[in-house]
């Protein structure tokens, strides 16, 4: 694993500090972090919690690809992408993306690019639990 990239898929609580500490370095001036948390409402329904399932080996590969793209497209110095699996409660962190760059503009661009791409291509699935039932998000036409 390249030491410019830190990828984690874990059933344990995610740590912003761990992501931040990985990406910070003497040559960077800007760090952008995105944290996706679990909301208590979606489409006007009360959400009790979520459950994430991952095709772990492939998801790690896809997340590495995204991080590499951040380096190539946005000259990112370091990139951390961490994703939860299993049951995730309201306000808990589902995903953290951290990017350090020399200048701040690219930190924002890379971080947003990474979360957009993650949602498109990384094989992770989310089941949303409501008061009366559950369903796999995005699965229905």
């Amino acid at each position: 694993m390249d030491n410019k990239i830190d990828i984690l898929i874990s059933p344990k609580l995610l740590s912003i500090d761990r992501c931040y500490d990985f990406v910070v370095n003497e040559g960077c001036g800007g760090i952008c972090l995105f944290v996706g948390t679990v909301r208590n409402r979606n489409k006007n329904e009360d959400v009790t919690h979520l459950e994430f399932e991952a095709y772990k080996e492939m998801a790690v590969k896809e997340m590495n690809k995204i991080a590499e793209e951040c380096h190539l497209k946005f000259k990112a110095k370091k990139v951390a992408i961490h994703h939860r699996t299993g049951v995730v409660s309201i306000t808990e962190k589902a995903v953290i993306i951290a990017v350090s760059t020399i200048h701040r503009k690219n930190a924002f661009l890379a971080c947003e690019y990474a979360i957009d791409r993650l949602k498109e291509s990384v094989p992770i699935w989310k089941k949303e639990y409501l008061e009366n039932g559950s369903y796999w998000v995005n699965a229905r036409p």
Partner: protein
Amino acid sequence: MKIKCFGIAKDITSTETLNIKDHAIVTVSDLRQWLMTNYEAFANVKSCMVAVNQEYANDNLEISDLDEIAIIPPVAGG
């Protein structure tokens, strides 16, 4: 041929790993056809991707028992 099932695909097939013995399955496209035929519920799912050896695969890719194959329903990470 073993097929990993995730998310809604696991619910539909009721298993994490489908074990298919059908020599008519040569390509990804054949596998898709087999799934639609054997599990009608896939008709109610947005189109799935298929991953071969942990990479998204085109329909015309040939597959064999040696490949790691997975059904990838619409992803929803983040």
